[in-house]
């Protein structure tokens, strides 16, 4: 079974702090993604990566950055956390393609609260 592991289940941070969310996958997937999930807004793509050292902006990259130094690990960084970044953050991985043998595999999420 594919496993996508997010290092923290719950995080509480203060406004202005630098926050690191870590994600590791064990299936040698090329693609990795960071989404945030908010009620009424659904899943929104923050950043994604097709390969080590590569990163691409998603729909809402402002206030975030990412790092992919190793194929299995994709980190999301909030440079200076703000209260509007309080959300559920979901990491996902996939192999390339569009068929049903390349679905997104999600981690269980990190619920971040910024106070």
């Amino acid at each position, binding site marked *: 079974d594919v496993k996508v592991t997010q290092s923290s289940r719950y995080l509480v941070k203060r406004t202005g702090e630098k926050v690191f969310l870590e994600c590791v996958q064990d299936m040698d997937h090329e*693609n990795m*993604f960071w989404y945030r999930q908010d009620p009424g807004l*659904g899943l929104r*793509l923050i950043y994604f990566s097709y390969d080590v050292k590569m990163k691409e902006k998603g729909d809402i990259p402002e206030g975030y950055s990412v790092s992919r130094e190793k194929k299995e690990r994709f980190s999301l960084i909030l440079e200076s956390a703000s209260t509007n970044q309080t959300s559920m953050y979901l990491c*996902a991985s996939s192999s390339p393609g569009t*068929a049903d043998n390349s*679905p*997104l595999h999600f981690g*269980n999420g990190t619920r971040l609260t910024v106070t």
Partner: protein
Amino acid sequence: QKEVEQDPGPLSVPEGAIVSLNCTYSNSAFQYFMWYRQYSRKGPELLMYTYSSGNKEDGRFTAQVDKSSKYISLFIRDSQPSDSATYLCAMRWGAGANNLFFGTGTRLTVIP
């Protein structure tokens, strides 16, 4: 206008009922249609995948795509309490990560 519209519910049904979950979309270029299921405090997982129009059946679940109406549905027959979850539709037109769009999800509760 959102790319994908989905009624958020919540939807409560008695055990054994037939459940119909629906999404509409605006972009006629979408070709790949998916349903993800998300249990409470878990990440979404792929439940059904359909390419282009038509029906696809997997056990108690049937996914239906009507491209002429830009409408997709997920039917659950003989619903069980274990089906209680949030169901998200998703669709895309190609392999790129930024052309995958999710609905907001419908929360379903099946009452024993």
